[in-house]
């Protein structure tokens, strides 16, 4: 919660939905507040999928460009 508060208030701008700190905070809350269940697993899977997506959008276009030029 401290991290989330810090990220949303003290340290603008927030690059939502690109902000992995917020995703991690929500992930953390899901592990603490929701008992182990399918619901918890679904939320965690969504968080992982989100992180996969934001990383891929930033990294892979450039990586594939690089490979295409080299190979």
């Amino acid at each position: 919660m401290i991290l989330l508060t810090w990220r949303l208030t003290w340290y603008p701008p927030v690059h939502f939905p690109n902000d992995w700190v917020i995703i991690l905070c929500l992930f953390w809350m899901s592990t603490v507040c929701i008992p182990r269940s399918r619901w918890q697993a679904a939320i965690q899977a969504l968080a992982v999928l989100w992180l996969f997506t934001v990383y891929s959008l930033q990294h892979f276009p450039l990586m594939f460009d690089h490979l295409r030029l080299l190979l």
Partner: protein
Amino acid sequence: MILPLFWMGTANAAALLGAEALLQKVRNGSSAANAVLFLLIHLALVSGTVLVFGTLGLMKATVLGLVGTLALAIMLSLGIRPDWRSLKPPLPALPLTIFIGAVALRLAMQVWYFVPYVPDTLFYHLPKVAEWTRAGAITREVGLDWRANFPAGFELLEIWWVVFLHHEVLIELAGVEFLGLAFAAVYSLSRSAGLGERPSYLAATLALMTPGLHFQATSCLNDGAVAALILAAFALLAGRVHPGPALSAVFLGLGVKPTFGFALPGILLLWFLCRREPQDRPASPRIARGLALGTAMVGAYWYARNLFLHGNPLHPFSLHEPLPYRDYVLRTTPSLDSLASNILILINRRLYDPEAISAQLRGIAGWGIGGFAIGLPALLIAVRENPRFKRLAAAFGCSLVSVLAFSTTDAWYLRFTLFFPALLAVAAALWAERDRWLRIPIGAALAMLFLDTIVPYEFPMGGVAELARSPWRNRSMSSFSWDPPGNDPVLCVEGAGFFYRIYRPDYSRRVLYARPRNPEEVLSLMDRENIRYIRGASTPILTELVREGHLKRSIGQYFERIPRDRDPDRSEGTPRPPR
């Protein structure tokens, strides 16, 4: 070629058997930690051998091969044999075995086809390797780059892989050895965190595929080696090994690069947290202490050399004066400003790796999609649920904060943090052990990481095709440097760069370094050494020699000597006027 290969084979067999013999005397703690210890002893033996023979001026393939053969014969006659049972560890799950096999095969191809390509290595790491290999000794000459006086513990391993063939084709094996050490260390750390054998392989594979660490292995840079030695120190302490061998990792690390010291607070913290855990006593504590002492000497050699030659163990850094080359002073105390700016740059941008992966990690963290998308959330779960992991996380976190506080913010500072993704890999494997659905994203991440680690960003366009076309004996990327015709020595003066490429892949070209004070010194050196080409910047001295008709500009940074019959001073038979 057969004889050098034979010498290389016997010397390596002797080093491996020697490491095995020493391991029997110092082994204790968990079996996974002993695998780390074996690799560490092997690296220490090879480093020490190259250092001793290099200092004695006997660093030749024949000498090393003969000594290796003799040592092998003595060990075999004494009944020392490899412990085959301990060499048969349990295999990981079949898909992971296939994946690791594919990565190993690709690493072998990268070693075979890659040539040194990172500018830093061509400027100041590898000229030492080439110069000392040619001389068969660790000489005073290290080249013209001011950074060439940095510790060269990693270069000792590189020399080991080039000295027998007198060729650079296997030089990347030094980095691959350290990658193997990192793999074993992460496996051991996972076992210490309570993971089973198969999940520990998953953690080790995720760490192995950390893009920054992976490319460092085949780039001839030493930051990957430092990360592997940090991980080894963590693994030995967490694996309840005698402090002597654990200290060996620290000493070897400091001999590879002083930045190892940035991570020391975390290593000390882990030692403190583990100090009450019961430890097995090694068969020979004296040998364990001797190992620590030997590696201390190997690591301290470079600092002692700088103290002897330059009066300052940290030369060219100074604790008081800025370097004459950059506005940069070695930081001896952590800086909160650096810590804050390094953390913000990491979390705001570089953690996403917003570029293709380069070995130098320019503008990226190089932790990869596995560390980012799975490792970070897994860290939260593992810290909450696993007390053993909590201890590791505290130590790794302490080292990370320390490294970030000591590092000056630049485009490459995250290459000092390559040990940290290993913790994320262990956390991911712990989470995958708990929630099986996670194996799907981990499989996807491994596939993406495999794609990510094919060719580094530093490769020039067309570089891959050029390397694939070239025969191994003279494989190089022409875009790096033009190779002057003939076999005459090349003289390098102020402003020259990419020194290593001048030596050629088989180190057949002699390179001389000079810091001339006037044009006469250049001319006399060229006459004495029969030099046709000079490499350097257009300094006043070279400009004057061009103006006077002694030199003409050639390709790139090269100047060519004008033949004597066209040399105005000599053709007229008049001596040059004194200056």
